[in-house]
């Protein structure tokens, strides 16, 4: 089996990604709001109704906290704690407190004015407290809760974080869970662990969750080992992998495998790789596609080659200052280069899969898992884990039933995990009021050497 390319030396990898750099994908976290942006200089973004540029972040450590002043980011020290603004006065209960708008003497305009004049977050909160008729009558706990709420509303402080699987999963699960098939973090955690995903393993992943599982696997592989991403359509849709900003060496180990090539894989047993046969016209990606992330890089190189080649022969035939003709020629050579690269990668993937030594098969897609797992299990080595995820227990049970019929696995388990978060505060400890209703279902099992019946 071909070994993966040598990953970056350890120190380089550790230091190069702790500071914020231009071009990085970065997560901006403000309280519960988690959004991802690409750091580009002189370009404004919107976060929580505030517009500003990200320039001020460049050069600082990830994990730094910033405030926005006049459309620019400024690094600050840690945010003040609620307890720091509380005075000695407090009440015992809320029997005499009435919930009226007039309780707060400062108007919205007053607050905006303070912000424009550059008042610090702590000052604004202190002003709000002074101008509140009811604050001193609240209990200590109610005061803390009130301050926390005001902080979230008026203090534009946020942290810049390096994207990783945990944060991407959290972000998507909160904002658009359907895009990740409702995979909750604990379910994803089980998938990675039960799949024994680690360096030097080759993992086959069926992923239609925006690349969350592929990304998580790539992260756990750390550049060692290969990933085969099985996907519907001609091109994989995996924005999360892009957000995770992996180094090129990691992505070189990521192979795309469209579903529509699976049958040809099955029929190719025993044949040597045939580059030309695979590139049937309909399976060619268009220019500027994210099919394999090596495509763009390699294609640019071969693009310049073919361009120079093309132009020298063209000069006799065409007016080579004609920009339209030149562009069309360039597009065609890019397409040709892409086509060749695509076929090459696909052949490579097929060759590797046909060795039947996949170390882990993970299925997390919107499709019926049964045909996927019964087909792809053939390429998994014996005594290796498989993990099938579905939002629906019935789908997982169906896959289980069919696999048991085939008889190529042992150690079956159909399960789901239950996750609950807690509020831990002195005298106020209890589970959170709301919790996730479901995180999906898993089928895990271990392959065995298939007996000839």
């Amino acid at each position, binding site marked *: 089996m071909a070994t993966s390319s040598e990953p970056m030396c*350890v120190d380089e*990898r550790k230091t190069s990604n*702790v500071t914020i750099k231009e071009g990085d994908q970065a997560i901006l976290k403000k309280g519960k709001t988690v959004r991802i942006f690409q750091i580009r200089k002189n370009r404004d973004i919107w976060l929580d109704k505030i517009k500003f540029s990200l320039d001020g972040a460049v050069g600082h*450590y*990830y*994990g*730094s906290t910033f405030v926005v002043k006049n459309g620019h980011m400024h690094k600050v*020290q*840690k945010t003040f704690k609620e307890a720091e603004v509380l005075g000695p006065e407090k009440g015992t209960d809320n029997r005499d407190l009435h919930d009226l708008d007039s309780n707060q003497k400062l108007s919205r305009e007053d607050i905006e004015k303070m912000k424009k004049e550059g008042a610090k977050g702590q000052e604004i909160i202190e002003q709000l407290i002074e101008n509140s008729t009811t604050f001193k009558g609240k209990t200590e706990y109610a005061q803390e809760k009130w301050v926390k709420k005001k902080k979230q509303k008026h203090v534009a402080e946020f*942290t810049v974080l390096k994207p*990783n*699987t*945990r944060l991407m999963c959290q972000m998507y699960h909160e904002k658009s869970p359907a895009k990740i098939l409702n995979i909750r973090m*604990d379910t*994803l*955690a*089980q998938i*990675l*662990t*039960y799949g*024994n995903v*680690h*360096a*030097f*393993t080759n993992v086959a992943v069926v992923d239609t969750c925006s690349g969350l599982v592929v990304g998580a696997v790539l*992260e*756990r592989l*750390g*550049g060692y080992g290969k990933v085969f991403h099985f996907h519907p359509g001609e091109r994989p849709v995996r924005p999360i992998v892009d957000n995770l900003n992996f180094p090129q060496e990691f992505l070189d180990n990521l192979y795309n495998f469209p579903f529509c090539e699976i049958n040809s894989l099955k029929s190719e047993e025993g044949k040597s790789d045939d580059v030309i046969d695979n590139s049937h016209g309909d399976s060619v990606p268009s220019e500027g596609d994210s099919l394999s992330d090596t495509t763009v890089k390699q294609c640019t190189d071969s693009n310049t080659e073919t361009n120079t080649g093309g132009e020298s022969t063209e000069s006799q035939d065409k007016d080579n200052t004609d920009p339209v003709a030149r562009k069309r020629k360039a597009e065609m050579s890019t397409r040709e280069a892409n086509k060749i690269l695509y076929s090459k990668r696909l052949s490579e993937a097929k060759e590797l899969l046909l060795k039947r030594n996949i170390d882990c098969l993970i299925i997390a897609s919107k499709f019926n898992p049964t045909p996927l797992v019964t087909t792809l299990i053939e390429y998994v*080595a*014996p*005594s*290796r884990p498989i993990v099938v995820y579905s939002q629906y*227990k019935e789908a*997982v*049970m169906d896959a*289980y*039933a069919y696999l*048991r*019929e085939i008889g190529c696995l*042992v150690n*079956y*388990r*159909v*399960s789901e*995990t*239950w*996750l*609950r*978060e*807690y509020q*831990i505060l*002195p005298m106020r*400890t209890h589970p959170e009021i709301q919790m996730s209703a479901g995180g999906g*279902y898993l089928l895990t099992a*271990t*392959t*065995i*050497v298939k*007996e000839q019946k």
Partner: protein
Amino acid sequence: MSLAKYHDKVKENDTVILYLGYDNMHAIKIKKGSVFQTRYGALRHNDIIGTTYGSRVHCPKGYLYILYPTPELWTSNLPHRTQILYTTDISVVSFQLDLKPGAVVVESGTGSASLSHSIIRSILPDGHLYTFEFHKERAQKAEEEFKDHGLSDYVTVTHKDVCQFGFDLEDVADAVFLDLPVPWDAIPSAKKALKKQGGRICSFSPCIEQVQKSCTCFAELGFEEISTKECLVRNFDVRTINLPNPEFSRDKTKSQPPKKGSRFDRDDMDAYSEETAENSAQCDIVESSDTKENKTSEVLDTPAWDYIGRKTAANFSFKAGISLGRMPGHTGYLTFATLYPL
């Protein structure tokens, strides 16, 4: 042998997992000439040496499978010296601490090294685990096991009481894991051990009072995003269920009584078995026997694909995932926090 990298064939000194059936596995260390007694008879180690992992091996009264030891299989079958962390919690810890190759992790207490094996697997080849255990023999046993499993290069075991003496590590760790009765005694030293560029920490405690004190300590020391979670696993037993239709009159010509002696008449759910012994392999799909029976009974007015299962005059049959009896209700609370750079 190595838990770090798969290899194909069983060698002497390998730790292998013997799979006999559902909930019936054993971890054994292969030694030439040894014999392991199973319910299917004697298993000679010599017979296993050289076989491919995943193979079926025959014993006098049945057969079993030889499986490669993953950290998960090891966790399920390791000898307990202390209460251990199980895979459900281990998965969440690994995920929330952002473990990956190259990560440096500090852990205390090592205990039975269940979590330790998983951590090492996730951070190799360029990461490292510093694990601390205050019980001398347990520390030694853990060290031996790591050696047996080919993981010594990735781990340093220290016999030390970190609550009293601290970790004596500074600016090295990406993540710290604490499973201690008094974690707040170790948290200040844990903070020091974390890298200046920041890192993650986790404290596992069975009792809520410990969690409260730990969270207060985290907050005082400047940790952020302090979050306490609990994760429990629920397993499902997949089987076909036949619910007989009730009789509404004494006239018995309309419907047939339920099949006598059906497995599913029994209350005993332990009838479900994945046993691999030649004589008792049972399949959950009873389609064939249902069809035979229902040919004679009147099939009700149902479409070819019924809404959930199959209905005949006598029965409603469907495949169900059942959770009966007991399930783990509590293992411990997992508290995570982040240390950001200054």
